[in-house]
């Protein structure tokens, strides 16, 4: 037998209605409570404070010159801030019931930490560059001054001279940068000055070493010349290019010493006509030119080129070191007109007129004249 559903009567419905209301109201209250807890517990204030701290830290890093002295750290801090902001924007588009703001907080915190790191690094790098710039400007200034003083006497090549001027210009620019506290620019320019100076120094040292390779031969020539003067009880002349002197020996003893000037290319041995080099070798006075016979007050011509010079000339031509049509040259003299404090002759040895007068009186045709790169004596 089937049970028949009891039809709902008005009294039955009246008993069910309060129950529905109670359950519905309870659910509503729970929902409101949940929302209230979610809202009150929201870390918006914390996030905002964290981002503000990160922004301030990045600004402080910039104020300490991090864009110059710690650019990578500053960029990382700025990127962390932007990532935090992007994450916050993404979370704000979601329902507040499901937002996750931990990633925002973490990125903001990382950004602030990176910015502090940028400040530390910027201060340290700036301080270090400032100290090294002050030290290096003194070193660079001294290097450049030394090159001007010392190598100015070494027949400076055009390439050296250009590098030296470039160094001087960079040094001036470095001083200007240092004055406006731009330590990075100052350091870079000073590094370049020191590098150029070092390059000139190395090249000059190499050149001097090559020059001094013949020193033993020159010392031998000098000693033999002095010995000849002693044994013949006669006058002999030794010209020392590096010492810039013209020494007169009489009976093997130093009689007098004069300051001498040479050709601009004095560090080279004369190979050909027009090379402005003063030759090295053992020569003799071939002619004496008195007043009216020379434009240089008085002159003693020497017998350049000798056999050794001719041999060297032929070898240089064969090796292509001088043009095939070049001439060996001649007319090398010791003459007056000097005292100009520079190397100006075409290869001759120049003395002041007063000194030339004295030498002219002492020397005669056949007097040995030995020209050396250095005699080893100062």
């Amino acid at each position: 037998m089937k049970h028949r559903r009891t039809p709902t009567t008005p009294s039955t419905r009246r008993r069910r209605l309060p129950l529905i209301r109670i359950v519905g109201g309870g659910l509503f209250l729970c929902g409101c409570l949940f929302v209230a807890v979610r809202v009150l517990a929201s870390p918006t204030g914390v996030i905002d404070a964290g981002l503000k701290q990160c922004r301030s830290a990045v600004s402080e890093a910039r104020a300490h010159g991090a864009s110059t002295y710690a650019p990578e750290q500053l960029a990382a801090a700025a990127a962390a801030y932007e990532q935090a902001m992007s994450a916050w924007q993404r979370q704000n588009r979601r329902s507040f019931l499901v937002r996750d703001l931990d990633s925002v907080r973490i990125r903001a915190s990382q950004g602030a930490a990176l910015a502090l790191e940028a400040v530390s690094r910027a201060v340290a790098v700036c301080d270090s560059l400032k100290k090294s710039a002050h030290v290096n400007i003194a070193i660079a200034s001294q290097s450049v001054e030394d090159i001007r003083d010392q190598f100015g006497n070494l027949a400076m090549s055009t390439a050296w001279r250009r590098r030296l001027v470039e160094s001087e210009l960079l040094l001036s620019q470095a001083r200007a940068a240092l004055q406006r506290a731009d330590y990075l620019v100052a350091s870079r320019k000073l590094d370049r000055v020191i590098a150029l100076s070092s390059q000139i120094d190395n090249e000059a040292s190499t050149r001097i070493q090559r020059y001094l390779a013949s020193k033993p031969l020159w010392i031998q020539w000098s000693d033999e010349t002095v010995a000849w003067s002693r044994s013949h009880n006669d006058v002999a002349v030794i010209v020392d290019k590096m010492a810039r002197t013209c020494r007169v020996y009489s009976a093997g003893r130093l009689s007098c010493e004069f300051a001498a000037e040479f050709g601009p290319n004095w560090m080279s041995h004369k190979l050909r006509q027009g090379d402005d080099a003063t030759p090295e070798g053992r020569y003799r006075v071939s002619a004496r030119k008195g007043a009216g016979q020379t434009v240089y007050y008085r002159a003693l011509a020497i017998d350049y080129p000798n056999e050794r010079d001719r041999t060297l000339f032929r070898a240089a031509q064969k090796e292509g070191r001088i043009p095939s049509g070049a001439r060996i040259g001649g007319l090398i003299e010791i003459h007056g007109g000097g005292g100009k404090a520079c190397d100006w002759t075409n290869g001759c040895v120049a003395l002041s007129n007063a000194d030339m007068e004295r030498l002219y009186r002492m020397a005669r045709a056949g007097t040995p004249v030995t020209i050396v790169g250095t005699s080893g004596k100062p």
Partner: protein
Amino acid sequence: MKFKALVSVAAVAASMGVFTGCAKAPTADIDAAKKAIETAKTAQADQYAAASYQSADDTLKAALAEVEKQNAAMALSRNYTEASRLLKVAATLSAKSEADAASGKEAMKAEIESSVTATKSALQAAKDLLKKAPKGKEGKEALQAMEAELSTVDASLVQADADVAAANYVAAKDKLTAAQGKIQQITDELNKAIEKTGGKKK
């Protein structure tokens, strides 16, 4: 019955209002402020008006953070007044930094161009003086040396021109000042040499 239905509908609408909110983010102000800062950056305000540009950028960042702070709040409690104010300030500061940059650049450019003209004139004068220097054997090496030095200074001025073209006025100024010093030094040496031989100083 009908009254109850109406009350129910009103309650639902009010609930929807609570959750969807009434205040809107100031997107027009955001766009205007962002555009202003980009324009200032294009005008090199970050180089020529660094302080005012940075102030504008910081204000914009603060404004955008304020917008998000309000976006995070409950709909009924959102208030974008402060954000709008900050955005307008950021736009104003950006415009100021752009104007500062323009006037700063113009002033520096005028100063540098004047310096370029003066330095090139001095260099040409030194070259002309070199031609008039005594040509004797004793001066030959010294003249060749000065010629090489002036040539190096000339090369430095070419670099300065490149800096001016790239609007690197600080670098250009340093090069010009250094060149002027060197030119003066060479000119003084030339004048001494000319005076020594009895010529007239220039």
